């Protein structure tokens, strides 16, 4: 039986979703006729067509294993922009707050969720419910209930033989992976303390419009829609902390605030916190999103016999009695996304639905939320208190179109 006839017999959707795909799915070469080529690819819907959404759509297409067939964004101009670039039918370019429901109703096998973090839990849960594979940008939620929703959606996906991948770029890098593995094995001895930093200039500007549509367009400035910089961006470094320590923090204490931006609904300019981990391990965390350099995401964790040092798009190494020279990680921002896009396709083809990226993503997301609560309240907050409080963030979007 040739590939084409097998595809036809099984039915393309069942072919992509079922365990049978593991042994038989093959991405056909572009040289083959267009109809056959299209049938061999994963039909992808893009939810969120802003800066990163339109950028990552290109990477999905470049991978060769996907065909972008649908897209959605609150703003029609953004959805239409992606649709025009990728030659989608206008009927498959959706707008409004419920754009994701329309994307899910299109003939898609998988969705990439790149909308503002505030919306991601509901969108991911709906996608899994609809039987779609999910590729989700980080962070996956802005609050504890959102993390709980993602955790459940990941498990549900596994039960439905669906892939759910969270796109953390650092975890794909060979130097990070090897260095973290060695630290976890004991090559730097017992962990003692560490520092982690995430510093950048203004990314989303200084001002937040008052109206709903204005906020949706500048969602990165809204502390609820984005989760604030500690959840939306600083999670990169906090994820590395929890990865190295392989545990969630017990508590956090510290501060944060605004010197450059103004307004209660606006994101903080900075956070300074201490996270307390099991076995008395302490991590000093510092972030900034204003001004000028030195910039970067970096972590240093000291052990009794050495230290692990990591720099996003820089050097990763281990110092001490069992050194590891590592190397420079290169363009993780793009290389990591490319790697995750490839892994997503491979996992779908192979029926690999352990969805191993979900639990550590939930853990680091909650860690970021813990730090935010501690900074907002100015009090020491324990993990258990945060979980018990189960605070849900709500942004009034009256005036926005459905």
């Amino acid at each position, binding site marked *: 039986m040739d590939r084409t006839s097998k595809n036809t017999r099984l039915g393309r959707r069942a072919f992509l979703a079922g365990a049978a795909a593991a042994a038989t799915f093959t991405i056909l070469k572009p040289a083959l006729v267009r109809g056959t080529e299209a049938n061999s690819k994963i039909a992808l819907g893009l939810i969120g067509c802003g800066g990163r959404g339109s950028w990552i759509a290109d990477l999905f297409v470049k991978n060769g294993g996907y065909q972008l067939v649908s897209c959605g964004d609150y703003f029609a101009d953004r959805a239409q922009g992606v649709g025009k670039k990728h030659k989608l039918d206008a009927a498959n370019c959706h707008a409004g707050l419920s754009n994701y429901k329309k994307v899910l109703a299109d003939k898609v096998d998988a969705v990439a969720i790149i909308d503002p973090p505030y919306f991601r839990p509901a969108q991911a849960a709906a996608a899994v419910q609809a039987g779609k594979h999910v590729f989700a940008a980080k962070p996956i939620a802005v609050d504890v209930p959102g993390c709980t929703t993602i955790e459940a959606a990941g498990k549900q996906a596994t039960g439905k033989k669906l892939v759910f991948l969270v796109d953390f770029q650092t975890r794909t890098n060979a130097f990070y*992976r090897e260095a973290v593995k060695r630290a*976890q094995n*004991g090559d730097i*001895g017992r962990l003692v303390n560490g520092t982690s930093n995430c510093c950048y200039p203004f990314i989303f500007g200084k001002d937040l419009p008052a109206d709903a549509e204005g906020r949706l367009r500048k969602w990165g400035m809204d502390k609820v829609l984005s989760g604030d910089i500690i959840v939306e961006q600083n999670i990169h470094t906090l994820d590395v902390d929890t990865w190295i320590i392989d545990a969630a923090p017990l508590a956090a204490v510290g501060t944060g605030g605004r010197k450059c931006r103004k307004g209660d609904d606006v994101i903080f300019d900075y956070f300074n916190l201490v996270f307390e981990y099991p076995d008395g391990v302490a991590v000093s965390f510092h972030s900034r999103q204003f001004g000028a350099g030195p910039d970067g995401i970096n972590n240093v964790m000291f052990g009794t016999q050495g230290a692990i040092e990591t720099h996003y798009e820089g050097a990763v190494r281990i110092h001490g*009695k*069992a050194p590891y020279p590592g190397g420079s990680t290169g363009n993780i921002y793009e290389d990591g996304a490319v790697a995750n896009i490839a892994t997503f396709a491979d996992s779908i083809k192979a029926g690999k639905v352990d969805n*191993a990226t979900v639990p550590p993503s939930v853990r680091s997301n909650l860690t970021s939320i813990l730090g935010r609560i501690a900074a907002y309240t100015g009090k020491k907050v324990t993990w258990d208190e945060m979980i018990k409080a189960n605070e849900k963030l709500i942004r009034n979007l009256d005036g926005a179109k459905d």
Partner: protein
Amino acid sequence: MNQRQRVFRVGIAGILAGAALLACGCKRDVPKTPPPTMAATAPASGPASVTGAGATMPAHPGAGATMVNSVGMKFLYVPPGEFRMGSDPAEPGRHDDETAHDVKITRGFWIAATEVTQAQWQKVMGLNRAEPKGENLPASRLSWPQAVEFCQKLSQAEGRTYRLPTEAQWEYACRSGAAEPYSGGKLEEVAWHMDNSGEAPHEVAGKKPNAWGLHDMHGNAAEWCRDLYQRDLGPAQAVDPAGPGEGNARVVRGGSWGHFARACRSAARASFNPAYPLDRIGLRVIIEPKSPNPSSNP
């Protein structure tokens, strides 16, 4: 059949095969001229085999057959067989370079019952850089090329082929039929690791051996293997895998007194720059038979 049953079955099958080889006890295969300074013994409950210093090798080596070489290293015969290499995704402490897959070992080999001691290293190499010092402490602070040199010197002295084990041979011997993360008993019974070692090496064979009589496969000194390291363990079904042809790091197995328990699991893989002589890495050697016939002498 689940993984545990499968590995167990393979292990038992291997032992039975080895026992059968021993049971036939064909003296005609004993070489006329015994290798110099090699002593051989049979397991107490096993079939007859020649014993005593300077005597012949076991006629038909099988599981449980033992011998002692010129520097006092005790070797045990590991018969050919199949096993499940790597770990299940649910195994606590695993890393993602341990993809479980079936491996076939087509040739039996002799493997040292313990890590090479400092006294044995001193006899062969004429020096000992390990710290702390102790005759029965594992040799350490030795690079991968020095470990290979140790094998070469022993080979030249005895006319046999001493080598570092491939990581497949190492894990096959370590598991000795067990699918569990630690073979031979509970972790504390079989391993010196960071949380029970006082963060220092201990005399070899201070812990229980595994089912095939091998000590300290988990912990004490980590052990250089022959292979270059690559994250991907290879095809779903591999025959005598020996690692990639290119790479920068050499595989190290077993974890050490300075590693956490997770690094001492049967499936745990580590890699280090071969030029680094580290205080936690030593070696265990094997003797490969000259002939693919497992009944031939090494």
